[in-house]
Protein backbone atom coordinates (compact mmCIF):
# COMPACT_ATOMS: atom_id res chain seq x y z
CA UNK A 1 0.00 0.00 0.00
CA UNK A 2 1.41 3.35 -0.94
CA UNK A 3 0.70 6.36 1.20
CA UNK A 4 -2.56 7.49 -0.34
CA UNK A 5 -3.01 11.17 -1.03
CA UNK A 6 -5.84 12.87 0.81
CA UNK A 7 -7.75 13.16 -2.47
CA UNK A 8 -7.36 9.44 -3.26
CA UNK A 9 -8.40 8.47 0.28
CA UNK A 10 -11.43 10.75 0.06
CA UNK A 11 -12.40 9.34 -3.32
CA UNK A 12 -12.03 5.79 -1.98
CA UNK A 13 -14.29 6.60 0.99
CA UNK A 14 -16.82 8.15 -1.39
CA UNK A 15 -16.65 5.10 -3.65
CA UNK A 16 -16.97 2.77 -0.63
CA UNK A 17 -20.05 4.70 0.50
CA UNK A 18 -21.63 4.39 -2.93
CA UNK A 19 -20.98 0.66 -3.20
CA UNK A 20 -22.22 0.20 0.38
CA UNK A 21 -25.47 1.92 -0.57
CA UNK A 22 -25.74 0.01 -3.83
CA UNK A 23 -25.76 -3.43 -2.21
CA UNK A 24 -29.32 -3.13 -0.88
CA UNK A 25 -30.62 0.42 -0.60
CA UNK A 26 -30.12 2.36 -3.82
CA UNK A 27 -29.74 2.02 -6.80
CA UNK A 28 -28.73 -1.70 -6.93
CA UNK A 29 -26.92 -1.01 -10.20
CA UNK A 30 -24.40 -3.75 -9.30
CA UNK A 31 -21.50 -1.37 -8.65
CA UNK A 32 -21.28 -3.23 -5.32
CA UNK A 33 -20.16 -6.40 -7.16
CA UNK A 34 -16.53 -6.90 -6.09
CA UNK A 35 -15.22 -7.08 -9.66
CA UNK A 36 -16.67 -3.62 -10.36
CA UNK A 37 -15.94 -2.11 -6.93
CA UNK A 38 -12.39 -3.49 -7.02
CA UNK A 39 -11.49 -2.35 -10.52
CA UNK A 40 -12.72 1.19 -9.91
CA UNK A 41 -11.00 1.27 -6.47
CA UNK A 42 -7.78 0.11 -8.17
CA UNK A 43 -8.09 2.97 -10.64
CA UNK A 44 -8.66 5.45 -7.80
CA UNK A 45 -5.67 4.06 -5.87
CA UNK A 46 -3.51 4.18 -8.99
CA UNK A 47 -3.17 0.40 -9.50
CA UNK A 48 -5.85 -1.12 -11.72
CA UNK A 49 -4.08 -4.51 -11.80
CA UNK A 50 -4.33 -4.78 -8.00
CA UNK A 51 -7.98 -3.71 -8.17
CA UNK A 52 -8.77 -6.39 -10.70
CA UNK A 53 -6.87 -9.15 -8.86
CA UNK A 54 -8.61 -8.35 -5.56
CA UNK A 55 -11.98 -7.70 -7.22
CA UNK A 56 -12.01 -11.01 -9.10
CA UNK A 57 -10.97 -12.89 -5.94
CA UNK A 58 -13.83 -11.42 -3.90
CA UNK A 59 -16.21 -11.97 -6.82
CA UNK A 60 -15.53 -15.71 -6.48
CA UNK A 61 -16.66 -15.47 -2.84
CA UNK A 62 -19.64 -13.29 -3.78
CA UNK A 63 -20.85 -15.83 -6.36
CA UNK A 64 -21.44 -18.17 -3.40
CA UNK A 65 -24.09 -15.75 -2.07
CA UNK A 66 -27.73 -15.94 -3.12
CA UNK A 67 -29.34 -12.86 -1.53
CA UNK A 68 -32.88 -14.20 -1.35
CA UNK A 69 -35.48 -13.18 1.22
CA UNK A 70 -34.06 -12.24 4.62
CA UNK A 71 -30.84 -14.23 4.23
CA UNK A 72 -27.76 -12.73 5.93
CA UNK A 73 -24.64 -12.32 3.84
CA UNK A 74 -21.29 -10.50 3.92
CA UNK A 75 -21.01 -7.04 2.38
CA UNK A 76 -18.14 -7.34 -0.09
CA UNK A 77 -18.34 -3.80 -1.54
CA UNK A 78 -16.55 -1.53 1.00
CA UNK A 79 -14.42 -4.55 2.00
CA UNK A 80 -13.13 -4.86 -1.57
CA UNK A 81 -12.32 -1.13 -1.68
CA UNK A 82 -10.22 -1.36 1.51
CA UNK A 83 -8.52 -4.59 0.38
CA UNK A 84 -7.57 -2.96 -2.94
CA UNK A 85 -6.05 0.00 -1.08
CA UNK A 86 -3.88 -2.46 0.88
CA UNK A 87 -2.83 -4.39 -2.22
CA UNK A 88 -2.10 -1.35 -4.39
CA UNK A 89 1.48 -0.84 -5.57
CA UNK A 90 2.72 -4.21 -4.30
CA UNK A 91 3.31 -7.39 -6.34
CA UNK A 92 -0.07 -9.11 -6.19
CA UNK A 93 1.46 -12.55 -5.56
CA UNK A 94 2.64 -11.30 -2.14
CA UNK A 95 -0.14 -8.87 -1.23
CA UNK A 96 -3.30 -10.71 -2.24
CA UNK A 97 -3.43 -13.06 0.77
CA UNK A 98 -3.17 -10.34 3.41
CA UNK A 99 -5.63 -8.15 1.47
CA UNK A 100 -8.04 -11.09 1.31
CA UNK A 101 -7.80 -11.56 5.09
CA UNK A 102 -8.55 -7.88 5.69
CA UNK A 103 -11.33 -7.81 3.11
CA UNK A 104 -13.07 -10.95 4.36
CA UNK A 105 -13.00 -9.76 7.98
CA UNK A 106 -14.47 -6.44 6.84
CA UNK A 107 -17.08 -8.19 4.70
CA UNK A 108 -18.28 -10.17 7.74
CA UNK A 109 -18.38 -6.95 9.75
CA UNK A 110 -20.24 -5.31 6.86
CA UNK A 111 -22.86 -8.07 6.94
CA UNK A 112 -23.27 -7.53 10.67
CA UNK A 113 -23.57 -3.75 10.20
CA UNK A 114 -26.33 -4.38 7.66
CA UNK A 115 -28.31 -6.18 10.39
CA UNK A 116 -27.82 -3.18 12.68
CA UNK A 117 -29.15 -0.82 10.01
CA UNK A 118 -32.16 -3.07 9.41
CA UNK A 119 -32.93 -3.15 13.13
CA UNK A 120 -32.55 0.64 13.31
CA UNK A 121 -34.98 0.92 10.35
CA UNK A 122 -37.49 -1.24 12.23
CA UNK A 123 -37.16 0.94 15.33
CA UNK A 124 -37.68 4.10 13.26
CA UNK A 125 -40.83 2.56 11.77
CA UNK A 126 -42.12 1.66 15.25
CA UNK A 127 -41.65 5.28 16.32
CA UNK A 128 -43.72 6.41 13.34
CA UNK A 129 -46.44 3.76 13.58
CA UNK A 130 -49.16 6.32 14.39
CA UNK A 131 -48.22 8.52 11.42
CA UNK A 132 -48.15 5.48 9.10
CA UNK A 133 -51.55 4.34 10.40
CA UNK A 134 -52.89 7.84 9.69
CA UNK A 135 -51.71 7.59 6.07
CA UNK A 136 -49.18 10.42 6.28
CA UNK A 137 -47.09 10.33 3.10
CA UNK A 138 -44.50 12.61 4.70
CA UNK A 139 -43.81 9.94 7.34
CA UNK A 140 -43.06 7.40 4.60
CA UNK A 141 -40.69 9.83 2.89
CA UNK A 142 -38.89 10.70 6.13
CA UNK A 143 -38.47 7.03 7.00
CA UNK A 144 -37.08 6.34 3.55
CA UNK A 145 -34.57 9.21 3.60
CA UNK A 146 -33.53 8.42 7.17
CA UNK A 147 -32.85 4.79 6.27
CA UNK A 148 -30.84 5.76 3.19
CA UNK A 149 -28.76 8.14 5.33
CA UNK A 150 -28.14 5.36 7.89
CA UNK A 151 -26.93 3.02 5.14
CA UNK A 152 -24.69 5.72 3.65
CA UNK A 153 -23.10 6.31 7.07
CA UNK A 154 -22.63 2.54 7.40
CA UNK A 155 -20.83 2.32 4.04
CA UNK A 156 -18.62 5.34 4.79
CA UNK A 157 -17.72 4.11 8.30
CA UNK A 158 -16.91 0.62 7.00
CA UNK A 159 -14.66 2.00 4.26
CA UNK A 160 -12.93 4.40 6.66
CA UNK A 161 -12.31 1.59 9.13
CA UNK A 162 -11.04 -0.61 6.30
CA UNK A 163 -8.64 2.06 5.05
CA UNK A 164 -7.35 2.65 8.60
CA UNK A 165 -6.77 -1.11 9.05
CA UNK A 166 -5.09 -1.27 5.62
CA UNK A 167 -2.78 1.56 6.63
CA UNK A 168 -1.96 -0.20 9.93
CA UNK A 169 -1.32 -3.55 8.24
CA UNK A 170 0.87 -1.98 5.56
CA UNK A 171 2.93 -0.25 8.21
CA UNK A 172 3.19 -2.88 10.96
CA UNK A 173 2.31 -6.35 9.58
CA UNK A 174 5.57 -7.54 8.12
CA UNK A 175 5.40 -10.92 6.42
CA UNK A 176 8.28 -12.82 4.84
CA UNK A 177 7.84 -13.63 1.15
CA UNK A 178 7.04 -17.32 1.59
CA UNK A 179 4.33 -16.62 4.19
CA UNK A 180 2.86 -13.86 1.98
CA UNK A 181 2.85 -16.20 -1.02
CA UNK A 182 1.34 -18.97 1.11
CA UNK A 183 -1.48 -16.65 2.19
CA UNK A 184 -2.16 -15.79 -1.46
CA UNK A 185 -2.32 -19.47 -2.43
CA UNK A 186 -4.66 -20.25 0.47
CA UNK A 187 -6.87 -17.25 -0.41
CA UNK A 188 -7.07 -18.28 -4.08
CA UNK A 189 -7.76 -21.91 -3.14
CA UNK A 190 -10.52 -20.88 -0.73
CA UNK A 191 -12.05 -18.49 -3.29
CA UNK A 192 -12.15 -21.33 -5.83
CA UNK A 193 -13.79 -23.58 -3.22
CA UNK A 194 -16.40 -20.85 -2.61
CA UNK A 195 -17.33 -20.47 -6.27
CA UNK A 196 -17.31 -24.23 -6.94
CA UNK A 197 -19.43 -24.91 -3.84
CA UNK A 198 -21.87 -22.14 -4.77
CA UNK A 199 -22.10 -23.28 -8.40
CA UNK A 200 -22.77 -26.89 -7.37
CA UNK A 201 -25.45 -25.83 -4.89
CA UNK A 202 -27.08 -23.56 -7.45
CA UNK A 203 -26.98 -26.24 -10.15
CA UNK A 204 -28.74 -28.89 -8.09
CA UNK A 205 -29.12 -32.19 -9.94
CA UNK A 206 -31.00 -30.97 -12.99
CA UNK A 207 -29.90 -29.87 -16.47
CA UNK A 208 -28.07 -26.88 -15.01
CA UNK A 209 -25.52 -29.29 -13.52
CA UNK A 210 -24.81 -30.69 -17.00
CA UNK A 211 -24.40 -27.16 -18.37
CA UNK A 212 -22.06 -26.34 -15.49
CA UNK A 213 -19.96 -29.41 -16.31
CA UNK A 214 -19.90 -28.56 -20.02
CA UNK A 215 -18.83 -24.99 -19.19
CA UNK A 216 -16.06 -26.23 -16.90
CA UNK A 217 -14.80 -28.50 -19.71
CA UNK A 218 -14.75 -25.60 -22.18
CA UNK A 219 -13.00 -23.42 -19.59
CA UNK A 220 -10.37 -26.10 -18.94
CA UNK A 221 -9.69 -26.54 -22.66
CA UNK A 222 -9.44 -22.77 -23.19
CA UNK A 223 -7.07 -22.43 -20.22
CA UNK A 224 -4.91 -25.29 -21.51
CA UNK A 225 -4.75 -23.89 -25.05
CA UNK A 226 -3.82 -20.34 -24.02
Amino acid at each position, binding site marked *: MTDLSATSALLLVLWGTLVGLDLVSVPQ*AMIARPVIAGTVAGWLAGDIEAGLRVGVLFE*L*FALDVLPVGAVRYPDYGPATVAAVALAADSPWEFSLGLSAALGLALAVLGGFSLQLVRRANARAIQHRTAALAAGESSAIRQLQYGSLARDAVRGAALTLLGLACAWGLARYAWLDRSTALGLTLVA*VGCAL*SAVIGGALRGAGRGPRLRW*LGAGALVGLLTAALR
Partner: protein
Amino acid sequence: MNGGWQAWLRLFAVQGTWNYERMLGVGIGYAAEPLLEDLKTVDPVRHTEAVVRSAEFFNCHPNLAGLAVGATARAEYDGAPGAQIARLRTALCSPLGALGDQFFWAGLVPLLVGGTLIAAVLGVRWWAVFGFLALYNLARVATGVWALRTGLDAGMRVGSAIAQSWLSRATERVGPAAGFVVGAAIPLVGAWYLEPIGWPAAFGAVAVAATGVAVTRWFGASLTTVRFTLLALVLLVLFRWVLP
Protein backbone atom coordinates in the same frame (compact mmCIF):
# COMPACT_ATOMS: atom_id res chain seq x y z
CA MET B 1 -53.29 8.55 -13.16
CA ASN B 2 -50.04 10.58 -13.19
CA GLY B 3 -46.70 10.05 -11.47
CA GLY B 4 -45.63 6.96 -13.40
CA TRP B 5 -42.07 8.11 -14.10
CA GLN B 6 -41.61 9.39 -10.57
CA ALA B 7 -42.81 6.05 -9.21
CA TRP B 8 -40.42 4.23 -11.57
CA LEU B 9 -37.49 6.34 -10.36
CA ARG B 10 -38.44 5.73 -6.73
CA LEU B 11 -38.45 1.99 -7.37
CA PHE B 12 -34.63 2.17 -7.57
CA ALA B 13 -34.73 2.80 -3.81
CA VAL B 14 -37.50 0.34 -3.02
CA GLN B 15 -35.27 -1.54 -0.55
CA GLY B 16 -34.14 1.68 1.16
CA THR B 17 -36.10 0.99 4.35
CA TRP B 18 -35.64 -2.80 4.34
CA ASN B 19 -36.23 -4.25 7.81
CA TYR B 20 -37.29 -7.53 9.41
CA GLU B 21 -40.83 -6.33 10.24
CA ARG B 22 -42.34 -4.74 7.12
CA MET B 23 -39.49 -5.80 4.83
CA LEU B 24 -40.08 -3.87 1.55
CA GLY B 25 -43.34 -2.36 2.82
CA VAL B 26 -42.28 1.24 3.43
CA GLY B 27 -40.21 1.26 0.20
CA ILE B 28 -43.30 0.15 -1.72
CA GLY B 29 -45.28 2.93 -0.06
CA TYR B 30 -42.58 5.42 -1.06
CA ALA B 31 -42.70 4.27 -4.69
CA ALA B 32 -46.51 4.21 -4.79
CA GLU B 33 -46.90 7.74 -3.37
CA PRO B 34 -46.71 9.65 -6.71
CA LEU B 35 -49.20 7.23 -8.31
CA LEU B 36 -51.70 7.71 -5.51
CA GLU B 37 -51.40 11.52 -5.52
CA ASP B 38 -54.34 12.09 -7.93
CA LEU B 39 -56.60 10.04 -5.66
CA LYS B 40 -56.27 12.79 -3.04
CA THR B 41 -58.43 15.18 -5.07
CA VAL B 42 -60.94 12.53 -6.22
CA ASP B 43 -61.45 10.70 -2.92
CA PRO B 44 -59.35 11.92 0.06
CA VAL B 45 -60.58 9.17 2.40
CA ARG B 46 -59.72 6.48 -0.11
CA HIS B 47 -56.32 8.14 -0.64
CA THR B 48 -55.50 7.93 3.07
CA GLU B 49 -56.55 4.27 3.20
CA ALA B 50 -54.49 3.54 0.07
CA VAL B 51 -51.36 5.20 1.54
CA VAL B 52 -51.74 3.14 4.74
CA ARG B 53 -52.13 -0.09 2.74
CA SER B 54 -49.19 0.74 0.45
CA ALA B 55 -46.69 0.85 3.34
CA GLU B 56 -47.79 -2.36 5.08
CA PHE B 57 -45.74 -5.57 5.08
CA PHE B 58 -44.56 -6.63 1.66
CA ASN B 59 -41.68 -8.59 0.25
CA CYS B 60 -40.64 -9.55 -3.26
CA HIS B 61 -37.70 -9.24 -5.60
CA PRO B 62 -36.84 -5.51 -5.87
CA ASN B 63 -36.66 -5.54 -9.67
CA LEU B 64 -40.23 -6.87 -9.93
CA ALA B 65 -41.70 -4.61 -7.24
CA GLY B 66 -43.16 -2.40 -9.98
CA LEU B 67 -45.73 -5.11 -10.74
CA ALA B 68 -47.07 -4.88 -7.19
CA VAL B 69 -46.86 -1.08 -7.03
CA GLY B 70 -48.64 -0.66 -10.38
CA ALA B 71 -51.29 -3.33 -9.78
CA THR B 72 -52.27 -2.09 -6.32
CA ALA B 73 -52.35 1.56 -7.45
CA ARG B 74 -54.62 0.61 -10.37
CA ALA B 75 -56.84 -1.40 -8.02
CA GLU B 76 -57.13 1.61 -5.68
CA TYR B 77 -58.31 3.82 -8.59
CA ASP B 78 -60.68 1.08 -9.79
CA GLY B 79 -62.30 1.11 -6.34
CA ALA B 80 -61.51 -2.49 -5.45
CA PRO B 81 -62.37 -3.33 -1.80
CA GLY B 82 -59.48 -2.74 0.58
CA ALA B 83 -59.48 -6.33 1.85
CA GLN B 84 -59.19 -7.57 -1.74
CA ILE B 85 -56.16 -5.31 -2.37
CA ALA B 86 -54.54 -6.55 0.85
CA ARG B 87 -55.10 -10.14 -0.36
CA LEU B 88 -53.57 -9.25 -3.75
CA ARG B 89 -50.46 -7.90 -2.01
CA THR B 90 -50.14 -11.08 0.06
CA ALA B 91 -50.68 -13.26 -3.01
CA LEU B 92 -47.99 -11.41 -5.00
CA CYS B 93 -45.18 -11.76 -2.42
CA SER B 94 -44.11 -15.35 -3.08
CA PRO B 95 -44.38 -15.50 -6.90
CA LEU B 96 -42.64 -12.15 -7.43
CA GLY B 97 -39.94 -13.20 -4.97
CA ALA B 98 -39.40 -16.63 -6.49
CA LEU B 99 -39.48 -15.45 -10.13
CA GLY B 100 -37.18 -12.50 -9.49
CA ASP B 101 -34.71 -14.51 -7.44
CA GLN B 102 -34.58 -17.23 -10.09
CA PHE B 103 -34.28 -14.83 -13.02
CA PHE B 104 -31.95 -12.18 -11.55
CA TRP B 105 -29.99 -13.58 -8.59
CA ALA B 106 -29.66 -17.21 -9.78
CA GLY B 107 -29.66 -16.50 -13.52
CA LEU B 108 -28.85 -13.15 -15.08
CA VAL B 109 -26.38 -11.90 -12.44
CA PRO B 110 -24.18 -15.06 -12.36
CA LEU B 111 -24.41 -15.22 -16.17
CA LEU B 112 -23.14 -11.65 -16.59
CA VAL B 113 -20.64 -11.89 -13.73
CA GLY B 114 -19.24 -15.13 -15.17
CA GLY B 115 -18.91 -13.46 -18.57
CA THR B 116 -17.22 -10.46 -16.96
CA LEU B 117 -14.72 -12.67 -15.15
CA ILE B 118 -13.87 -14.51 -18.38
CA ALA B 119 -13.45 -11.25 -20.29
CA ALA B 120 -11.37 -9.71 -17.47
CA VAL B 121 -8.92 -12.62 -17.23
CA LEU B 122 -8.64 -12.75 -21.03
CA GLY B 123 -7.46 -9.13 -20.97
CA VAL B 124 -10.62 -7.18 -21.79
CA ARG B 125 -10.68 -5.17 -18.58
CA TRP B 126 -12.55 -1.88 -18.66
CA TRP B 127 -14.80 -3.15 -21.44
CA ALA B 128 -15.71 -6.09 -19.23
CA VAL B 129 -16.65 -3.74 -16.40
CA PHE B 130 -18.61 -1.35 -18.65
CA GLY B 131 -20.22 -4.24 -20.53
CA PHE B 132 -21.43 -5.85 -17.31
CA LEU B 133 -22.87 -2.60 -15.94
CA ALA B 134 -24.50 -1.71 -19.28
CA LEU B 135 -26.08 -5.12 -19.89
CA TYR B 136 -27.33 -5.63 -16.35
CA ASN B 137 -28.76 -2.14 -16.03
CA LEU B 138 -30.35 -2.32 -19.47
CA ALA B 139 -32.13 -5.53 -18.46
CA ARG B 140 -33.01 -4.13 -15.06
CA VAL B 141 -34.37 -0.80 -16.39
CA ALA B 142 -36.37 -2.52 -19.14
CA THR B 143 -37.80 -4.98 -16.60
CA GLY B 144 -38.67 -2.11 -14.26
CA VAL B 145 -40.55 -0.20 -16.97
CA TRP B 146 -42.32 -3.37 -18.10
CA ALA B 147 -43.24 -4.32 -14.53
CA LEU B 148 -44.75 -0.95 -13.65
CA ARG B 149 -46.66 -0.69 -16.96
CA THR B 150 -47.95 -4.26 -16.70
CA GLY B 151 -49.06 -3.68 -13.12
CA LEU B 152 -50.81 -0.42 -14.00
CA ASP B 153 -52.57 -1.99 -16.99
CA ALA B 154 -53.60 -5.24 -15.30
CA GLY B 155 -54.65 -4.11 -11.81
CA MET B 156 -56.32 -7.01 -10.00
CA ARG B 157 -55.63 -9.29 -12.99
CA VAL B 158 -51.86 -8.92 -12.63
CA GLY B 159 -51.47 -12.61 -11.75
CA SER B 160 -52.57 -13.79 -15.18
CA ALA B 161 -50.52 -11.01 -16.82
CA ILE B 162 -47.41 -12.36 -15.09
CA ALA B 163 -48.27 -15.96 -16.01
CA GLN B 164 -48.59 -15.02 -19.71
CA SER B 165 -45.45 -12.89 -19.74
CA TRP B 166 -41.90 -13.61 -20.92
CA LEU B 167 -40.64 -13.99 -17.36
CA SER B 168 -41.19 -17.72 -16.81
CA ARG B 169 -39.73 -18.69 -20.20
CA ALA B 170 -36.71 -16.41 -19.70
CA THR B 171 -36.11 -17.85 -16.23
CA GLU B 172 -36.03 -21.39 -17.67
CA ARG B 173 -33.41 -20.36 -20.24
CA VAL B 174 -31.14 -18.10 -18.22
CA GLY B 175 -30.37 -20.69 -15.50
CA PRO B 176 -28.54 -23.23 -17.70
CA ALA B 177 -26.72 -20.41 -19.53
CA ALA B 178 -25.52 -19.07 -16.17
CA GLY B 179 -24.35 -22.56 -15.19
CA PHE B 180 -22.37 -22.89 -18.42
CA VAL B 181 -20.69 -19.47 -18.17
CA VAL B 182 -19.81 -19.80 -14.47
CA GLY B 183 -18.50 -23.31 -15.20
CA ALA B 184 -16.25 -21.91 -17.94
CA ALA B 185 -15.08 -19.04 -15.75
CA ILE B 186 -13.84 -21.21 -12.85
CA PRO B 187 -10.85 -22.89 -14.59
CA LEU B 188 -9.94 -19.73 -16.49
CA VAL B 189 -9.87 -17.62 -13.34
CA GLY B 190 -7.99 -20.37 -11.47
CA ALA B 191 -5.34 -20.49 -14.21
CA TRP B 192 -5.11 -16.68 -14.27
CA TYR B 193 -4.09 -16.66 -10.60
CA LEU B 194 -2.06 -19.83 -10.39
CA GLU B 195 -0.11 -19.94 -13.67
CA PRO B 196 2.17 -16.96 -12.84
CA ILE B 197 2.94 -18.45 -9.40
CA GLY B 198 3.96 -21.81 -10.85
CA TRP B 199 2.12 -25.08 -11.06
CA PRO B 200 3.85 -26.92 -8.16
CA ALA B 201 2.61 -24.22 -5.75
CA ALA B 202 -0.70 -24.15 -7.57
CA PHE B 203 -1.35 -27.78 -6.63
CA GLY B 204 -1.39 -26.60 -3.01
CA ALA B 205 -4.08 -24.06 -3.86
CA VAL B 206 -6.09 -26.72 -5.72
CA ALA B 207 -5.80 -28.99 -2.67
CA VAL B 208 -7.08 -26.14 -0.47
CA ALA B 209 -9.98 -25.64 -2.92
CA ALA B 210 -10.89 -29.35 -2.83
CA THR B 211 -10.67 -29.40 0.98
CA GLY B 212 -12.79 -26.23 1.16
CA VAL B 213 -15.55 -27.70 -1.01
CA ALA B 214 -15.59 -30.94 1.00
CA VAL B 215 -15.42 -29.33 4.45
CA THR B 216 -18.00 -26.60 3.80
CA ARG B 217 -20.41 -29.15 2.30
CA TRP B 218 -19.88 -31.42 5.30
CA PHE B 219 -20.42 -28.72 7.93
CA GLY B 220 -23.11 -26.78 6.02
CA ALA B 221 -24.14 -23.38 7.34
CA SER B 222 -21.99 -23.63 10.48
CA LEU B 223 -18.77 -23.36 8.43
CA THR B 224 -19.25 -21.00 5.50
CA THR B 225 -16.47 -20.57 2.95
CA VAL B 226 -15.66 -17.14 4.43
CA ARG B 227 -15.18 -18.65 7.91
CA PHE B 228 -13.18 -21.52 6.41
CA THR B 229 -10.94 -19.03 4.58
CA LEU B 230 -10.32 -16.83 7.63
CA LEU B 231 -9.55 -19.96 9.67
CA ALA B 232 -7.12 -21.27 7.03
CA LEU B 233 -5.35 -17.89 6.75
CA VAL B 234 -4.97 -17.56 10.54
CA LEU B 235 -3.73 -21.16 10.84
CA LEU B 236 -1.14 -20.55 8.13
CA VAL B 237 0.19 -17.42 9.85
CA LEU B 238 0.31 -19.24 13.22
CA PHE B 239 2.06 -22.22 11.63
CA ARG B 240 4.69 -19.97 10.02
CA TRP B 241 5.12 -18.11 13.32
CA VAL B 242 5.66 -21.29 15.35
CA LEU B 243 7.81 -22.97 12.67
CA PRO B 244 9.59 -20.14 10.85
